[in-house]
């Protein structure tokens, strides 16, 4: 049995750790609430855009926008939205497993968040660039990423741009998801428009300026906000996963402290018994 002092020291260190994890849990839950709100509001915005799309059905089908142009050949570009910091459970590794399983081996990768960089390189995949976003990023910070993706797609002959992220379902559940960011397909737009329950009698609508012009300005907006949305979902998932992981860690630490305290008390009891035994033996011997 380890000495009393050893046990005491261990209890102290576990208690310190649990205070840290507890603090991290609080921070994560505060950030989570914010990220969650933004992610949900972002969904609102996308669906509002989709309401407008719903009335442009005809021109969507005939559109020759470069963002909707499909190519037969070319490699895939995969954007992986992961986290900059760890301590968020299996969030990143689950996402990475999904990405490896579902993407072609010759694909190029871009990461937002740095945690998966080494794993991507170790898996012998080509990493083109890695971006970092702070927790309360704004449009300005997202713009270079947007430009990079757009430029890569338009000029470097990629067949498709896929974005992989952890979809925020609720605090306990996040699901790894791959979404085709580019080219934007008519089916995708109509699917989003269909989700909302809007009546589609587009014939009666007056369009100003023409449907084509509207579409030309709305498509980049949609693309940009889709990217924003995905990153927001990623952030919300990260904070929830971290909160849950830290909560588990705090509870675990509590369990360990209980065990150690029990052990400590037992050891103390033994020590006292031993001392008493010594005293009584000594008195007995003196009689």
């Amino acid at each position, binding site marked *: 049995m380890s000495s009393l002092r050893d046990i005491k020291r261990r209890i102290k260190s576990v208690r310190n750790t649990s205070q840290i994890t507890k603090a991290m849990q609080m921070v994560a839950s505060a950030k989570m609430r914010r990220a969650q709100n*933004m992610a949900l*509001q*972002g969904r*609102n*915005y996308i669906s*509002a*855009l989709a*309401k*407008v799309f719903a*009335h*442009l059905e005809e021109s969507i089908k005939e559109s020759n926008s470069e963002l909707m142009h499909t190519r037969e050949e070319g490699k895939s570009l995969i954007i992986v939205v992961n986290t900059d910091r760890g301590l968020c459970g299996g969030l990143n590794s689950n996402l990475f497993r999904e990405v490896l399983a579902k993407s072609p081996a010759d694909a190029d990768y871009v990461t937002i968040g740095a945690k998966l960089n080494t794993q991507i390189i170790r898996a012998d995949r080509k990493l083109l660039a890695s971006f970092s976003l702070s927790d309360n990023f704004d*449009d300005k910070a997202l*713009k270079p990423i947007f*430009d990079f993706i*757009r*430029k890569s797609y338009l000029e470097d002959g990629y067949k498709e741009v896929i974005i992989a992220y952890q979809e925020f379902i609720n605090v306990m559940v996040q699901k790894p998801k791959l979404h085709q960011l580019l080219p934007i397909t008519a089916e995708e737009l109509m699917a989003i428009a269909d989700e909302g329950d809007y009546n589609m009698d587009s014939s*009666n*609508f*007056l*369009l*100003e*300026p023409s449907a084509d*012009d*509207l579409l030309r*300005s*709305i498509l980049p907006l949609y693309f940009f*906000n889709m990217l*924003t949305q995905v990153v927001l979902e990623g952030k919300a998932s990260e904070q929830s996963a971290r909160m849950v992981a830290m909560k588990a860690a705090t509870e675990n630490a509590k369990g360990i402290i209980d065990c150690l305290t029990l052990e400590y008390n037992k050891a103390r009891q033994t020590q006292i018994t031993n001392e008493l035994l010594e005293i009584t033996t000594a008195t007995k011997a003196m009689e």
Partner: protein
Amino acid sequence: MPLQFTIITPMRTALDCEVLALQLPASEGELEILPDHVDLISSVENGELRYRPVVGEAKSLFIGGGFLQVEHNKILIVTDIAVEAGDIDKDSVEKAIERAQIALKNRDSVLTREEQTYLEGKIAQQLAMLDFRKNKR
């Protein structure tokens, strides 16, 4: 019958209320919407949006470019920014303009056409915002 009026920006639902009338800068010129307006989709420019709520006096907002949809007395505006005059911080807007102008000047050769358009658009939006603020004071 009042109009159901909603403004949605990426960050928040900026406004959701019932109004009697609404004036805004559309791509084809100033537009006024009254009850029973024809169904319409239009793009919206930077500028001042005035509306008259069912109760209280007329109010105005600055809105950035975006889209407007009118459908059976339901008005939806999707835009990247919507603020009231009091919420516009002059210093930060001026700084933003300055930053954008410097970026435009310094990297003239490096900027792609899109980046230029983006920056110019940003400047135009911020200037319009300042203008709006000045008029309200």
